[in-house]
Structure formats: structure tokens, C-alpha cells
């Protein structure tokens, strides 16, 4: 019996190793080199052998573990896990508040980027996670927000804090504009039209040169101020450094921007969490579950959908305005489909409708990808041994591969996203 299982496992592992051989022989085993007579090929049989053996052993270890039953999988996280989960959100918040104290510009910049995506994820979560309307063109609202701020600042000299609500309102209007034609569509059809909408906005931005300067973009977008204090390098009286009588440094502005996006993201989170517990929020979730039943209960499906589009778009607009002020330069290049796809992946990976899940997914997808890159570069620099030198130098090139693999693993292990538990919006109190 046991020997039978052993042979089965060995055969399975051997098969995996064979597939690995076929896959990695050309990927790793062949290296192109600039030789004397032009481009030459160098074989690396040893590196391939190492990878194949690793796959063989890995598969064996995987098979030797007791198979998990379907029931165990459906049970979900245990009590300890859940308790840890409850502590996770406050811990993340404290970490986020304290992060700039580390003083590393690299990490503050990275965290700002992550927070931008968290905010976008939370905004899209309203549309996709709560209302169940699959939106593949979310980047359009991000673009509308960014361009609203940039153009208002350019034409009227308005500051960031004046334009922020305006950018949100503009994006919300864009959301309603998109909402009207797609009211009757569901599922795949809705997704296609929203995808098209995202592209339309981008192409309009490229071609409406007189307004948007076309592909060359808009430069010199003003930075935000802290109660009127600018973060400029001259250290004059009206600046942050001048007011507090300290040496002007770039890190001050970077840190300020970080706290701005942190505050924006937290407001988004607070608003969404509150909204979810209102009749409107419940109607969104009901709409996701069954549109026909909603109608039979007297819910105005049209208005409910439009508010979901508008509010989701509004948060996208806020994030866009922040993006514009942070970069000080925007062009249509920043608003391609891949951005929509990334934000949607964050929402799906995190768990539809889960705020914490979206935050975790954004940290992993945006922050993790970047950290992986720097880690692999670090490995490449420090793995001095001849054995791996060849592979190590290429390690950073494999980051997308590792990343894609991680996505697949998460989706296999937790098909409903990292955080798939749903908290009821209301419970029946004591009689």
C-alpha cells in the first residue's frame, strides 16, 4: 500500500521534473552571448539540472503531505487566524502612521505609491465589490481626476485643496456619464463597455491637443500646500521650511505627500465602511446578489447603479488629483489599461468587498513587486559563487514570473480572495 503510494508519487514527481526540463532547458539552459563572430549561444546544463532537481524534490514534498479534504478547505480560517486578522488592520494603520519616521525616502515613496493603489482599490471596491458591476475602465476616472486638477490649476491657478473636491465631482460626473449607457448591461457585456470607456477617455486625452497638450502631457502641476505653506526649496518666508525655520529638504515634501494620500485613503475607507451600513450600501449588495428581486422590492435600480458608479468614480478622481500633484507631470501614458487591470486584480485578489483584503493585496501587488525587485537585485549582487553567478545576474528579470506564480497560488488556495469573510452590515440586537 505504502510502496504503491511511493511509486505513484515518484512517477508524478518525475513527470513534473520532465515538464520542468522542457520548460527551463530553453529558458535557463541557453544563454545568448556576444562572441567574436556576433551573437553566440552558451549552454548551461548544470543550472538546468539544479532547477529540475528542485522541482522534483518540491513535488515529492508536496505529495507526501496529507491531502487536504474539501471540507477542511471550506472551513476557512481558524479562530486564531481570525483573531490575528482583527489585530491586523490596526497594526497596519500604526505602521503606516509611523513609516516616515524611518526617514528613508525610498520606502516613503514606495508607500505613497502603494497607498495610491489602495485608495484606487477601495474606490473600485464600491463598484465591483459591493454593487457587483464589473468595471474594466476604472482608470478613466483616475485620468479625469488627474486632468481636472492639472487643467484647473493651469487655467485658473487654483491650488490642490480647492481642486481636490472639484476633481472628485468631475470624476463622479464621468461615472454617471458611463453609467447611463450601461444601465441595462450585466456581466461580460458591462465589462466590455467599461473597457471601451477607459480607452475612449485615454484617446480623447491624446487627441484633444488644444486642451490637454496631447501626448506631451501637462507639466508644472503645482504641489499641495500645508495651510498655505509651500514645500519649495528656496526656504523663503511663505514656505514650510521658512515658517518653521529649518533647512528645506525634499524629504519634507515627500513625507507630506505621503500623509496626504494616507489621509485621503483613510477617508475613503471610513466613508465606504459607513456607506455599506446605510440603506444605499445594502441596496448595492442586494443589487449584486439579485437585480430582479431588488426591482420587485421597489428599489430604483437605475439610481442605485448610478450612485455606485458616481461614488466609485469620485474616489478614483481624488486619487487622480493626488497622482497629478505628486508627479507634477501627467500624460495619457499614465492611464493605460494595465492600470485598470492592476486595480481590478487588487480588488479580486484581496477579496471582493473586503476593505482589509484590498489593502493587503495592494501591499503585496505593488509594494511586494517592487520589494521583490530590490531583493533580487540584492541577491544578484551578493551571490558571489560561480555556481549561480549566471542565474543570479538575471534574477531581477524573473520578478514578473515569480509574481505571476504568486497570484496563481493565491487564487488556487483562496479562490475568493485573501479575505473572503463578509461581515453583516446589521445584526439583530437583544429584544
Amino acid at each position: 500500500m505504502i510502496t504503491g503510494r511511493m511509486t505513484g508519487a515518484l512517477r508524478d514527481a518525475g513527470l513534473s521534473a520532465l515538464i520542468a526540463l522542457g520548460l527551463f532547458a530553453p529558458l535557463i539552459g541557453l544563454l545568448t552571448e556576444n562572441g567574436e563572430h556576433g551573437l553566440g549561444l552558451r549552454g548551461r546544463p548544470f543550472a538546468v539540472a539544479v532547477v529540475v532537481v528542485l522541482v522534483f524534490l518540491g513535488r515529492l514534498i508536496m505529495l507526501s503531505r496529507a491531502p487536504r479534504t474539501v471540507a477542511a478547505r471550506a472551513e476557512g480560517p481558524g479562530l486564531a487566524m481570525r483573531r490575528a486578522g482583527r489585530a491586523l488592520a490596526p497594526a497596519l494603520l500604526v505602521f503606516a502612521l509611523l513609516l516616515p519616521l524611518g526617514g528613508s525616502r525610498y520606502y516613503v515613496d514606495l508607500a505613497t505609491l502603494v497607498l495610491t493603489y489602495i485608495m484606487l482599490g477601495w474606490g473600485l471596491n464600491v463598484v465591483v465589490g459591493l454593487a457587483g458591476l464589473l468595471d474594466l475602465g476604472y482608470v478613466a476616472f483616475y485620468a479625469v481626476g488627474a486632468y481636472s486638477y492639472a487643467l484647473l490649476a493651469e487655467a485658473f491657478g487654483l491650488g490642490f485643496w480647492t481642486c481636490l473636491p472639484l476633481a472628485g465631482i468631475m470624476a463622479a460626473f464621468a461615472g454617471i456619464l458611463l453609467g447611463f449607457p450601461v444601465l441595462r448591461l450585466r456581466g461580460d457585456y458591462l465589462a466590455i463597455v467599461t473597457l471601451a470607456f477607459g480607452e475612449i477617455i485615454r484617446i480623447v486625452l491624446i487627441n484633444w491637443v488644444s486642451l490637454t497638450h496631447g501626448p506631451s502631457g501637462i507639466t508644472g502641476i503645482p504641489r499641495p500646500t500645508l495651510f498655505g505653506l509651500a514645500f519649495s526649496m528656496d526656504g523663503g518666508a511663505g514656505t514650510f521650511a521658512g515658517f518653521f525655520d529649518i533647512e528645506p529638504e525634499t524629504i519634507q515634501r515627500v513625507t507630506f505627500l505621503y500623509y496626504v494620500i494616507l489621509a485621503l485613503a483613510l477617508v475613503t475607507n471610513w466613508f465606504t465602511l459607513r456607506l455599506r451600513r446605510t440603506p444605499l450600501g445594502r441596496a448595492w449588495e442586494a443589487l449584486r446578489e439579485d437585480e430582479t428581486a431588488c426591482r420587485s422590492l421597489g428599489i430604483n435600480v437605475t439610481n442605485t447603479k448610478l450612485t455606485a458608479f458616481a461614488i466609485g468614480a469620485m474616489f478614483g478622481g481624488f486619487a487622480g488629483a493626488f497622482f497629478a500633484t505628486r508627479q507634477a507631470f501627467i500624460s495619457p501614458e499614465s492611464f493605460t489599461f494595465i492600470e485598470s487591470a492592476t486595480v481590478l486584480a487588487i480588488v479580486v485578489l484581496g477579496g471582493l468587498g473586503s476593505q482589509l483584503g484590498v489593502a493587503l493585496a495592494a501591499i503585496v501587488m505593488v509594494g511586494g513587486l517592487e520589494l521583490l525587485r530590490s531583493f533580487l537585485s540584492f541577491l544578484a549582487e551578493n551571490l558571489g559563487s560561480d555556481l549561480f553567478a549566471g542565474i543570479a545576474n538575471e534574477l531581477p528579470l524573473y520578478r514578473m514570473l515569480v509574481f505571476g506564480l504568486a497570484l496563481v497560488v493565491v487564487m488556487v488556495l483562496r479562490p475568493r480572495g485573501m479575505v473572503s469573510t463578509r461581515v453583516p452590515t446589521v445584526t439583530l440586537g437583544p429584544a
Partner: protein
Amino acid sequence: MLAAAGLTMRFGGLTAVADLSFEARAGEITAVIGPNGAGKTTVFNCITGFYKPSEGRIALTHPNGARFALDRMQGHRIASRARVARTFQNIRLFAGMTVLENLLVAQHNALMGASGFSLLAVLGTGRYRAAEAQGREKARHWLDRIGLIDRADAPAGELPYGAQRRLEVARAMCIDPVMLCLDEPAAGLNPRETDVLNNLLLGIRDDGCSLLLIEHDMGVVMRISDHIVVLDHGKKIADGSPAEIRADPAVIAAYLGEGDEDGVAA
């Protein structure tokens, strides 16, 4: 209460309902019966605004005298203004939401008004909290009546089939309807569950809500109906009290079938 006159519904070349006129009286349970494909659900969809009738009128008169032309109203207004609630042949609960949430979604319009279109609710004002507490009380009342008070915070999709049927009725009742339309409420229920449902429906009628019922289970129809309309091929072939319908030769020929034991005997 509800009067349909000359109701006709055509889908392309197919006439599902032809020149149907009937009346459902206030405070009664009116059953619509007929063989499969007779057009019962089509009639329901016309009344509740899911279809626009090709011809004919459907008029609803509230007990307070307000009149509504259902054939000309938008779908969701029929529920929110004319107060006609319905259930579905295939249960349509919000399966991922809890039992209590299902009942609160049904009170959407009342709560929306109290919450200033949810803006006040986001800010957490006392007025909304009071309204929501009231909504919870109404839900609690219905949970008591359908015997699901212990499952209030469980996802609706996890309830047993019979409980889901009852919950759908309770959810429809949470919009405070003057008329409740039930599309085969007893389908798939065991005899004990059917009895519970019968009592629930009779209780709803005694509270003053009129019921319109599509049902295949003749036991249910004969026991609780005050009035029966029989359809066949989109036309009305009989209309009367259960006793009259049982004796009507046209009905027996078209639908009940001669010597059909579980039919007339009940």
C-alpha cells in the same frame, strides 16, 4: 381591489395571454391556476411590471381609495407606490446577505427617506438610527412569524429550502404591501412545511393584505383560496369559488382531469 380588463400579452407571434379579464377582491386570497404554459406567470409579470402588457388595463384600488394604473407604471414604482409585492417561482433571495439584511433591504425606500438618501446615515445622525431600529423591529416581527428569529444573522442562502420560501414571503411583506403576489409558494415543500405556509398566508390575509396566488398544489389552492381563476392557453375558462371550480366541467376537462385523485379530492 385589482381588476384586469382585456389583458393581452404577445411575444412575437405567440399570444401568451389573450383578452383576460378578472378581479381580485380586497381581503381575499385569489388563486390563478391552470396547466403548465397557460400564461399564469405572464399575468403575474404584467401585474408586477416586469412585462408591459400588449393590450388591456390593470387597475389597482387601495383601501383608502387611491387608484393606480399598473400597466402604465415603472417596475419599481409598482412596489414602492402601488404597494404590490411579489415572490418568485425560483426563490430569489439575496443569498450572500444575512436573513435580517434581506428584510432590511425590503424596507429600502422607507429607510432611504429617513436617512436623507444615506447621507445622514453616513454621518450617523440619531434620526437614522431611530429609523433603523424601527426597521429592525419590523424585521423581528416577521422573523417571529416565520419562525426564523434564531437564524437572523445567518446567510439567507444557507437556510433550508422551506425556510427560504417563508423568508421570501416575509421579505415581500416588509414593503408593507396592500397586495401580495405569490408565484408557486408551495413548490417543493413537504406536507408539514406546506401547512406552515398555509397558516402564514391565511394570517397575512387576516391582517388585511390581499393575496394573489399561482399554485400547482391543489391541496393548497382548495384549502386557502377564497376565489379561483382558471386559465388555459392564455384564456380564462372559469372563475368562481373553490366549490364552483371543483364542479365546473370545463375545468375538469382541461386541467384537473377526470378521476385525478390528488387533484379534486383535496
